[in-house]
Structures are given as structure tokens and as C-alpha cells.
């Protein structure tokens, strides 16, 4: 238990450092990418070099990913500040969201069915563990 907490803290410190580095790179080199995406690339390169996910990073990533919804709440709440924009254009927003999501989901399903229906259990799918139960 304590061991896992320590691992979690070390892992979080590592992820946080990567994020700080990506923030620095974003501002200093004015890279036109969202800072967090730069961080994703750094961590991905790190994992590819190590050829495995260190336990500490796994341990801290799990709660971060599972509760990403909590970290999104500030943004969702501040949308109340844009209330008038919503009130004015909600019809357009609803139409755009419904139409684009349904049509593109339909087309993507159709295309991927054509491409992937032949692939039957030939691939070994690494089933990712609990880092999946996030909900945002």
C-alpha cells in the first residue's frame, strides 16, 4: 500500500516534469502544438526507449486518466460565462453536433467494417487494463 503510494508520487512527479518541459518548449520555441500534446510525444518516446511502462508511471497514470473528468470541470463551468453565445446560436450548435457526429460515425463504422471484417482474431490485442475506465 505505502509502496504503491510512493510509486504513485514518483510517477506523478515524472509526468509533471514532462508536462513542465513541454510547457517550456511550447513557449520558448513557440511550437504550434497544444503543450499537452508535446508532453504526450515526450512520454511516448520515453516509453518506446524503455520498451515498457515503468510501474511508477503506470501507478500514477491510472487515477489521472480515470478522473480526467474532474480536471475538465473548470472548463465546463466557465462555459456559463459564454451563456449569451450559447443562447444565440444553440440551434446551429445542436444541428452541427448531431449531424456531424451521426454521419461521420455511420461512415466510419461502414468503412472500418469493410476493412476489418476480414481480420478475425488474427491479431493479438493487448487489452489495456483499468486505465480505460475514464469518462470524459
Amino acid at each position, binding site marked *: 500500500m505505502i509502496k504503491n503510494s510512493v510509486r504513485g508520487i514518483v510517477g506523478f512527479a515524472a*509526468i509533471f516534469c*514532462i*508536462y513542465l518541459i513541454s510547457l517550456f518548449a511550447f*513557449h520558448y520555441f513557440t511550437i504550434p*502544438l*497544444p*503543450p*499537452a*500534446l508535446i*508532453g*504526450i510525444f515526450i512520454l*511516448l518516446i520515453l*516509453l*518506446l526507449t524503455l520498451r515498457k*511502462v515503468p510501474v511508477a508511471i*503506470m501507478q500514477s497514470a491510472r487515477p*489521472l*486518466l480515470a478522473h480526467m*473528468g*474532474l*480536471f*475538465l*470541470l*473548470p*472548463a*465546463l*463551468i*466557465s462555459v*456559463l*460565462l*459564454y451563456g449569451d*453565445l450559447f443562447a444565440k446560436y444553440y440551434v*446551429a*450548435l445542436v444541428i*452541427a*453536433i*448531431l449531424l*456531424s*457526429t*451521426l*454521419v*461521420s*460515425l*455511420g*461512415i*466510419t*463504422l461502414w468503412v*472500418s*467494417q469493410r*476493412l*476489418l471484417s476480414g481480420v478475425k482474431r488474427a491479431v*493479438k*490485442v*493487448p487489452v*489495456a487494463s483499468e*486505465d*480505460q*475506465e*475514464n*469518462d470524459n
Partner: protein
Amino acid sequence: MIINTDPIKAVLEQIIAQFSLLWTQDFGFMFACLFITLSIYLLSRKLHFYLNQTPLLHPLTVSTLIIGLGLYVTQVDIIEFKQGITLFELLLGPATVALAIPLYNQLPVLRQLGFKVLAPIIIGGSIAPLIAWLSVYFLDTPLQLQMTMLVKSITTPLAMGTADLIGGVPELAAVIVILTGIVGATFGPWLIMLTKTDSEYAQGLALGSVAHVVGTSKALSISETCGAFATLGLCLNGIFTAVLLPLLFA
């Protein structure tokens, strides 16, 4: 050799300024806000699980509504409250970085299937924003809103960062993205029947690349394999969109 340290200092100050709200405000107020937000979030999550995870009562919509209503009733300023929960906002960055882990875990699938998984992701990832943009364009909305629409089908944290770079509104992006996810996950099973998609790989890939994380949790309720493909769709579409849009519009 003399290195000019001024730009480095300026950048560091900029980064520190982002975090400074954590220690410059009233701690009592901050902890109260954090505690309230956390409780509401956990409660709505419980409710969501209790009601068989229906996408219509997504914890994020429920908590936003409860908090919004609470702020309205108690007359607390939204900006002040938002400053109170800065800690959660700041954790979004590291949490997004952690997405590299599920992506790393799914890389073998990408290596084995290559084009067969890339094509649907690219198609879904470009059709969705295109249709969304066309509809808001023809419905005569401000440019700000049109730019925000372009990021609608990628995972929220990346969508917010990208919207910021291309002249959209990050907060609005968050809402549009969540709504997209809810629509996708609600109508997903119905569309799967309609298109007679029986391959779990295909179902997962489509749900993940069009309806991001909300779609991924729907895919996980179908099967773990389906969820794994959804994760791949979610990560890759997020990366493609977040790389391409700023190059095109920033």
C-alpha cells in the same frame, strides 16, 4: 560564451504565473471550492454507474448543471469559483500527457494492421469536423464558433489546447466535445445495427475516433477488445487533429 538568459527567464515567469493562483488566494475558500467540486463530481459519477452508465446522464453534464445551479442560487461569482478550483484545471495537463500510456499499449495493433486502422480514423477524423464546420458556416455563426467546431471529435484536453491555438474558445470546445461524445455514445449502438457492423474492431475504432472518450467507455461496455480499438482511435485522431489544425490555421 555568453548565453542570453532573459528569454528563458521570461518563459519561466510565464509558466509560474499559470500556477501562481495556487498560493496567492484565500486557502479556506480554495479548499471549500475544491471539496464541493470533488463531492459533486463523485456523486454524479456514482449516479451514472447506478443508472447503467446511460450516456444521457454523463457525470460531467450532471456535475456542471449542479454546480452552475448552485453558483446561481448562492450568487457566488463564476470567475471566483473557477479560481478556487485552479488545482483541478492545472492537473489536466499532466493527465493528458498520461494518454501516451494507453497509446503505447495499443501500438502493436497499429503495427500489425497499419493502413486498415489508419484509414477509418483519418476518414472519420476529417469528415466529422468538415460536416460540423459546414453546418455552422451555413447557419451563419461567428468565426470564433466555427473554429471551435473543428476540434469537436477529439479528446477534450487536446481539443481545448488546439482551439486556443486556432482562434477558437477553449471552454466552448470542452462543451462541444462532451456533447459530441454523448451523442456518439447514445446513437452508436443504433448506428452499429443500421450499418450491420459486426466486427468488434470496427465498432471500437469508429466509436473512439468519432466520439473520443465517451465513445471509448461505450466501446468498453461492448467488450475489452472493442475498448482497446477505441483507445487507439481516440489517441490517433486526437494527435492527427491537434497536429494538423494549428498547422493549417494558426
